């Protein structure tokens, strides 16, 4: 028996007046489980435990949560990577309203994503087959398109915590740059004009929490720097 002590944030707004931490003992049988496996064992002990999950292999981005103080995907985070002193503390992603237990309301996160118009805009006549892109132009999208919108980065960002209604956040800005950098997109000027206020992009203070937590190894801070460069290059 190798027991892991797990402390989990519990909150059911229908029955609880306030959130609380519940302690669980999980038998790992000496294996280095993923945090999601631990949650599945807990779910067998207490079926009222609520969390989101789907693909269990870091592709869908459903199980973003805060593990011992660091955001990440529970399905691709081994307990040996996050456990401190034999203890695992699981909390919902910080800064978003809690729906129940580890499930958060991602509404404002998606709203900021919607705001940057995350789709290709091109007002020129569509060619007969497809819009071509050179391999070099396509290379510019590497490190941008891989985002799975798990919200680990934006909810690790203090600028997003204080102003989630005004600051787009690292996830949204990475996608904003993904379309600014796309050779097939012709709405660059319009996109930039939506971003030059003091909040949308410029509330980023470059502390790089987003880079530290991204489970896909992406770099939103670099993308934000590129957006600033574009804004500067397009200004007089």
């Amino acid at each position, binding site marked *: 028996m190798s027991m892991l002590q797990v402390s989990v944030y519990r909150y059911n707004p229908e029955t609880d007046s306030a959130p609380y931490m519940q302690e669980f003992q999980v038998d790992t049988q000496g294996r280095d489980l993923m945090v999601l496996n631990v949650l599945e064992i807990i779910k067998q002990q207490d079926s009222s435990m609520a969390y989101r999950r789907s693909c269990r292999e870091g592709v869908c981005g459903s199980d973003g949560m805060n593990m011992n103080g660091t955001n990440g995907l529970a399905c691709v985070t081994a307990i040996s990577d996050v456990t401190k002193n034999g203890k695992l503390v699981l909390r919902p992603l910080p800064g978003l309203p809690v729906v129940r237990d580890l499930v958060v309301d991602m509404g404002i996160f998606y709203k900021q994503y919607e705001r940057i118009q995350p789709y290709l805009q091109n007002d020129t006549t569509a060619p007969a087959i497809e819009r071509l892109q050179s391999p070099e132009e396509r290379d510019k999208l590497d490190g941008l398109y891989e985002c799975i919108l798990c919200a680990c980065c934006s909810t690790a960002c203090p600028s997003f915590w204080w102003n989630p209604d005004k600051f787009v956040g690292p996830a949204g800005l990475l996608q904003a740059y993904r379309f600014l950098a796309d050779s097939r997109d012709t709405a660059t000027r319009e996109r930039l004009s939506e971003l*030059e206020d*003091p909040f949308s992009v*410029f509330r980023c203070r470059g502390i790089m929490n987003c880079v530290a937590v991204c489970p896909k190894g992406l770099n939103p801070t670099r993308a934000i720097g590129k957006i600033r460069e574009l804004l500067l290059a397009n200004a007089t």
Partner: protein
Amino acid sequence: MVTNITNFGRSGLSDWLVQRVSAVVLALYALFMVGYLLLHPGLDYATWNGLFAQTWMRIFSLLAFVSLAAHAWIGLWIVITDYIKPTGIRFVVQIAIILAIFIFLVWGVQVLWGA
């Protein structure tokens, strides 16, 4: 696009640029001051007064004061918009800060060009 009316330059881009340019000016002024004080260990009033009697030093100092004013306005505006959410209180604090910056700036000019 988030509308703002109390920030320094009406645009995040201009605020960001002003913040960086003013930081360079302040760094140069600070380095000059530290260097000057290190090169003049037994500094007396006459030498210090002589330094500020020169026009280039007054221009350099005023440039540093104006940079400091802009830098403080932008920086404190950012801090305030992070931490003070009620619009009324935030507006009053912003006005107080802008007023203080203005007073310090005018006072600085008076010190530089006064008797």
